[in-house]
């Protein structure tokens, strides 16, 4: 990076450019072993000398900047709860408390704010977490597009649960909890006001219940990741980059809703790189896969759970296409842009 380089929107896309920014500019300046693991949430070794009687503390934070603020299937409030609950869940932690930071733009209607806070309350109650502390700031009109929300979350990882990308092993099965691309496609359609006959709903949801179900069926789950920004393609690349292994998935087994597939194919987008907000990738040992699949399918958020591939082979992520071809899946470079013909 040169001195004149600036932050671009693509730096926030979740792809290779963002990883470069985090790993080259941010992390080295804040260096410590907890941060450097760069998992969805940090696992705290102790609390200033105090230890829990059982389990370990998981801690995370995330900011939410979605436009439009309300979209089919959710809103920025629900997203702010689900995103942080899910980051904790991806370590196998039981989420307990969230903080809520609101940066509100001058001029936002109080009725809109009310609706967002109600949505936060509803999502928190459903997930079994409490909003334990908060902060409110107001900024000039036009500064943040209505409202920006930050939530931090804390939870407890039960004893016997150890989940991390480095635990993926040769022969493991890769399971996906449901359809890919719903959230980003829903946002795109809502933001661009694309006129479709059918409504596409975001999959925005708290995954702690589903994760609990998975851990009951198999406490020794190796990896859990939610394919948010950058989608399945980017998240699988993050897993292999930490484990040094290969993953091959089968395109025909990856669930994609028909209307999502249709919108993506019109715009030239690949559902594999579209963000999700209520889906989880589970990597487990082969002999546990059937039990995990069965457990997931018994949960409302895992009805379409499918084994999509296996860990092993040449390092990197590969896709066996529907017609039987093989192609590598690389990390997304920047934002996906609609094509021209």
């Amino acid at each position: 990076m040169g001195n004149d380089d600036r932050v671009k929107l693509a730096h926030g896309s979740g792809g290779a450019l963002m990883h470069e920014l985090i790993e080259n500019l941010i992390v080295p300046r804040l260096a410590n072993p907890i941060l450097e693991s760069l998992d969805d949430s940090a696992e705290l070794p102790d609390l200033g000398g105090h230890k829990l009687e059982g389990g370990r503390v998981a801690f995370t934070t995330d900011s939410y900047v979605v436009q439009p603020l309300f979209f089919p299937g959710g809103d920025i409030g629900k997203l702010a709860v689900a995103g942080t609950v899910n980051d904790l869940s991806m370590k196998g932690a039981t989420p307990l408390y969230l903080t809520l930071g609101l940066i509100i733009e001058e001029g936002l209607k109080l009725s809109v704010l009310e609706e967002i806070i109600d949505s936060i309350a509803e999502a928190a109650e459903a997930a079994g977490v409490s909003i334990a502390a908060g902060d409110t700031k107001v900024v000039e009109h036009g500064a943040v597009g209505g409202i920006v929300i930050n939530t931090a979350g804390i939870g407890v990882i039960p004893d016997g649960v150890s989940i991390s990308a480095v635990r993926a092993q040769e022969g493991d099965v890769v399971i996906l909890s449901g359809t890919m691309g719903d959230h980003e496609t829903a946002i795109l359609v809502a933001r661009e006001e694309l006129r479709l006959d059918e409504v596409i709903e975001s999959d925005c949801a708290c995954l702690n219940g589903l994760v609990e179900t998975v851990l009951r069926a198999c406490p020794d789950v190796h990896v859990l990741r939610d394919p948010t920004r950058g989608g399945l393609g980017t998240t699988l690349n993050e897993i292999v980059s930490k484990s040094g292994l290969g993953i091959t998935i089968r395109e025909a087994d990856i669930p994609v809703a028909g209307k999502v597939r249709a919108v993506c194919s019109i715009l030239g987008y690949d559902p594999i790189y579209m963000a999700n907000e209520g889906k989880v990738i589970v990597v487990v040992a082969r002999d546990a896969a059937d039990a995990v699949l069965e457990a997931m399918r018994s949960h409302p958020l895992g009805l379409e759970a499918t084994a999509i591939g296996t860990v092993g082979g040449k390092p990197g992520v590969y896709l066996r296409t529907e017609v039987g071809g093989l192609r590598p899946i690389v990390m997304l470079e920047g934002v996906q842009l609609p094509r021209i013909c």
Partner: protein
Amino acid sequence: MTGPVMEVELFRSESAAGALLRRIERLLKRAGATADEPVALMEVCGTHTVAISRFGLRSLLPDSLRLLSGPGCPVCVTPLIEIDRSIAAAETPGTIVATFGDMMRVPGSRSSLESARTDGADIRIVYSPMDSLQIARGNPGHEVVFLGVGFETTSPTIAATVLAAEREGLGNFSILPFFKTVPAALDMLAAIPDRPLDGFICPGHVSVIIGAEAYESVARNRNMPCVVVGFEPLDILSGIEALLEQVADIRTGEGDARVEVRYKRAVTSVGNVAAQELLRKVFEPCDAEWRGIGVIPGSGHDLSERYSDFHARERLSLDVVKPVEQPGCICGEIMLGRRLPTDCPLFGEACTPRRPVGPCMVSTEGSCAAFYKYERNAA
């Protein structure tokens, strides 16, 4: 599942693909093709390039067949000077530039639209050219310039936008036209001496508009097999099969090149007459520069005399210095079918989608970008 999914899946059957691949193999033998002297087919359209890579078709096809990517990505063939001009328009105070998304990252000689936007220029991505009229209505004090990039698939919608602006009397809307047309480019490619090509996989979307008969003169006068092909994997394999039948016939003296349509669910012989009428009304043919290739006579569309008021150059001063292409890039050779992206010393090293050097790396539908994304580490 809903209807469209079922339909798409019909064109992705692994067993049907297997049957086509066996026929393709037999036809390659009949044509006398070997790994050292392969039959070379060119897919002219960027969407084909992406589909071939995305479905991993190269990994399924025998090495006695070579698929080459032509100049079929309109973003890629937009000359550097036009990118510089677009940036100059965006940097003019009081101007809003509206563009399709994949123009954003294309590097001009010193910056890109994306960087210009980071520096504060008002550049907006639109999904339909009609959306730029909405921007013009909402910003009466600004000049809204739409970047007119595209082949015959896209240009009719932009022609319709110009007509709508005229009807509405919108005085603050104009376009910067860099339109390209396909048949003249195919003719130029087919006429290259010792041509490296045995047939064209003709673009499906463009053909919906211009009709299959637009390729008759290339097929007949240049004895070049032309098959119009759709974008699903079975469409593409079926198109390759049809082309190889012609190549084998030509090589064994049993037939001549002709135009065939293997995308009959969308393409007719005459095409979309209403869209052609729009093109004739608003545009006129012009010579056009194709980045990496040069000027091809009669291969562009400019605004006709009647609509020349809508040309952005009538409203803004867009004089820019003629830029120089970076040395080492072989995009021109790639688009002419002489080389593959992986033959380029810059590929994947000095030239990546994030920091592209040549035109074929800039758009998602460019051949180098498709190779980089889908085939760089192919097993």
